[in-house]
């Protein structure tokens, strides 16, 4: 949708292009990977930083948000974590030292790339989202990440944690690309958390390949000190009778763009994407989804709730694509937002793109403020206004959190929600 290249390159665009020129020779991977990186960089270079004129980035103008590109950290490994936790520090992977559950294999992406098979390269650089300038830049520049392989039939009960952190020195950028391969009939769950003690511009990509009858659940959460600017990309391919569910809990970070490209490529694939965003101050959070049903009998559910206070702005763009012949697709998408302040803004763009006739697809989007009647009801029972508002918001947001299967995580997110509301009330 952006046929015209940017007329003038911004300072940040030039800096990013230079960083590729400097780094390209030293990036891991053989000739095939090098070729892919060059092509991906060309895509980025042709398009430049996404801006208002790029339809998919209309509400998140990166040219404006990224006036300056911080130098990209070269990074080094850190001490391994205890427990089943992979640390991606400044874009560099450190594997846990503990014994891994049977059927689970973890490899640092830099090592995996060294002797990568064609299949692995193909899985790591999928065509989904490849047109997007930031995904392309990630493909060109990612030095490391983690490769998580779940063997066919393996049932991994423990949650695999992916902890993204960064060093506490000067402002910098970090880039990583990780791949999760879930074999046939296997089951696993992953939690991704993002911290950054200093000003960080992060570009992280997580790619899932979920084979037939497998199941994967994924949770994305921000930490108190989240990156200043974060472009987080999720790409997933869901096989026959497989299920993929992803839930995002966003309460920190200045500018966050989460984009998900999910494709149901096997019959009866089940996709569920959900999220809660709690935004205040000048925070900006963008959720952009492209859910594609390529074969019959697919099912997808999206539910996103956004609560906005202060001068925060929220974006929800969801596109459900039903390809020709993907008959009997059942798609439902809902985005609901509550504006607590007159200076907050919410932009909703739920899209349907349907090429098959025997489908049931719908979407709903609502924007509004808290219901005065409900507040009155609670206040009439002696509850102060702020608390009454908190109770209503909590009820509104918890509807999404109920979908988290892991009780520990559900309670943790619930506590974060309560904490956010308590801080608002004080």
């Amino acid at each position, binding site marked *: *949708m952006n*046929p015209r290249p940017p007329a003038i390159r911004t300072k940040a665009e030039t800096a990013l292009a230079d960083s590729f020129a400097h780094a390209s020779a030293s990036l891991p991977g053989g000739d095939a990977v090098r070729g892919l990186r060059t092509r991906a960089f060309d895509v980025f270079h042709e398009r430049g930083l996404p801006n208002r004129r790029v*339809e998919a980035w209309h509400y998140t103008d990166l040219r404006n948000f990224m006036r300056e590109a911080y130098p990209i950290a070269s990074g080094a490994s850190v001490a391994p974590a205890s427990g089943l936790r992979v640390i991606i520090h400044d874009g560099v992977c450190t594997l846990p030292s503990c014994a891994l559950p049977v059927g689970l294999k973890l490899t640092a992406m830099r090592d995996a790339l060294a002797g990568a098979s064609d299949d692995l390269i193909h899985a790591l650089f999928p065509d989904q989202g490849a047109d997007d300038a930031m995904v392309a830049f990630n493909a060109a520049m990612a030095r490391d990440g983690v490769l998580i392989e779940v063997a066919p039939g393996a049932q991994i009960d423990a949650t695999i944690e992916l902890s993204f952190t960064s060093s506490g020195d000067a402002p910098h950028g970090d880039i990583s690309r990780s791949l999760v391969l879930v074999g046939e009939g296997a089951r696993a769950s992953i939690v991704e958390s993002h911290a950054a003690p200093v000003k960080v511009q992060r570009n992280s990509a997580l790619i899932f390949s979920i084979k037939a009858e497998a199941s994967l659940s994924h949770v994305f959460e921000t930490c108190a000190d989240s990156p200043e600017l974060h472009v987080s990309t999720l790409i997933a391919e869901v096989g026959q009778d497989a299920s993929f569910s992803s839930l995002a809990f966003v309460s920190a970070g200045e500018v966050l763009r989460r984009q998900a490209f999910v494709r149901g490529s096997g019959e009866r694939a089940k996709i569920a994407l959900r999220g809660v965003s709690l935004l205040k101050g000048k925070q900006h959070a963008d959720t952009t989804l492209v859910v594609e049903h390529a074969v019959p009998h697919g099912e997808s559910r999206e539910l996103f709730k956004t609560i906005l206070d202060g001068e925060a702005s929220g974006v929800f763009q969801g596109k459900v694509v039903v390809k*020709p*012949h993907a*008959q009997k697709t059942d798609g439902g998408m809902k985005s609901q*937002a509550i*504006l*607590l*302040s*007159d*200076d*907050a*803004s*919410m*932009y*909703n*763009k*739920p*899209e*349907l*793109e*349907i*090429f*098959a*006739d*025997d*489908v*049931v*697809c*719908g*979407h*709903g*989007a*609502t*924007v*509004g*403020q808290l219901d005065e009647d409900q507040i009155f009801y609670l206040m009439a029972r002696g509850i102060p206004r702020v608390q009454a508002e908190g109770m209503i918001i909590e009820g509104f947001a918890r509807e999404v959190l109920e979908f988290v299967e892991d009780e520990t995580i559900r309670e943790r997110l619930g506590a974060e929600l309560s904490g956010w509301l308590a801080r608002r009330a004080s």
Partner: protein
Amino acid sequence: MAAVQETVDKVRSVEVDAYKYGFVTDIESDMAPKGLNEDIVRFISAKKDEPEWMTQWRLDAYKRWLTMQEPVWARVNYPKIDFQDLYYYAAPKRSPGPKSLDEVDPELLRTYEKLGIPLREREILAGVEGAAERRVAVDAVFDSVSVATTFKAELAKAGVIFCPISEALQTHPELVRKYLGTVVPVTDNYYATLNSAVFSDGSFVYVPPGVRCPMELSTYFRINEKNTGQFERTLIIADKGSYVSYLEGCTAPKRDENQLHAAVVELVALEDAEIKYSTVQNWYPGDSEGRGGIYNFVTKRGDCRGDRSKISWTQVETGSAITWKYPSCILRGDESRGEFYSIAISNGHQQVDSGTKMLHLGKNTSSRIISKGIAAGRSDNTYRGQVFAHRKAKGARNFTNCDSLLIGDTCGAHTVPYIESRNASAVFEHEATTSKISDDQLFYCMQRGLSGEEATALIVNGFVRDVLQQLPMEFAVEAQKLIAVSLEGSVG
């Protein structure tokens, strides 16, 4: 149920791929040379004997247009238009002088008879259940020129001005100058700018304060000449406390080449005024192979300028090879209201990208969008709409409902809504569904003796009922027939 029976009969009687308005009228016409340049713009302006400011206005628009690029964001595909390969002015030949029906070429009158336009005065349509006589004043635009306007005297008695815009430029230049281009600025978009430079005629309506226009006003547009572009411009002003209902109908002959239609419609509603604008668009959609048809690139916008004003758009879109049309409301006045009711039907190789914009600027403004898209054959049908609340638009309300119905597995239905809220007290609701006619519904109807096609027409009529009810009675009947004809050949 009588109307439904009529629809069913209609479906039976029409051959596949039949476009009933596909005749060409052989009329000598006066055409400007092909192509577009400053001289053509001056030529059109001179033909109309326009004041100097108007010529300058057109030239400014033309200069601006040269710097603009064709928009590419809509979900439509068509070969690039060669703007130099079009005629920008074609008028049925006739001697200058006072206009009366007697002077109109009889061939032209026969055309209108074929179109079924109640051009002759006193053509009376019976109202519902013995209601009072309903009469419609008609302004007919043939290629680029308005040829006849009826009921002028009676309208003048009420103080309503209803005439071709070229005439209004002579008789009421102050009104035209005050309002023209204030809703759709010259610089608005590629096609609106082109229209500003070369528009040749259209309707002008002014309803004075407190007047309820005594009859429906109507315009019929027809493209006749080969390779002509039709660029009409409509300007409707409803002064304080007035009311007007306006109908628009469009047809064109069958041609192998594509023809361009780029109109601009501007509505201005002052305090407490109400404008109801209905369209039944039935331009030639091209043949079953996708050859020919009209490119319909129209800019329609209403400005609820005064407090408590109301603008309502109703459209039934069945024709055109490509439709690119977004009738919008700028809700500027406090407590103003905008409505948009649409049925868009696409069959064959038609491409529709249509919707609306509701821009809430004033306090306690409200809007309602009901859009029904029906795609059949190999067509693509997109709803694209925007609802926006400004920071100051306290208490803005919107309800949007977009439903799509797919008939056959080679068509596409798409929904692209933009919902932008910039203040907490705005409440927006949006819902959209896409489905096909369920087998259960079809089975139920067919069990009672209807054929598959009849059953489909019946169900579709039920699907679009919400919108049909918004149309003036005589249009509703026509629209219902059109729907049946448009879906012809889509089942089985």
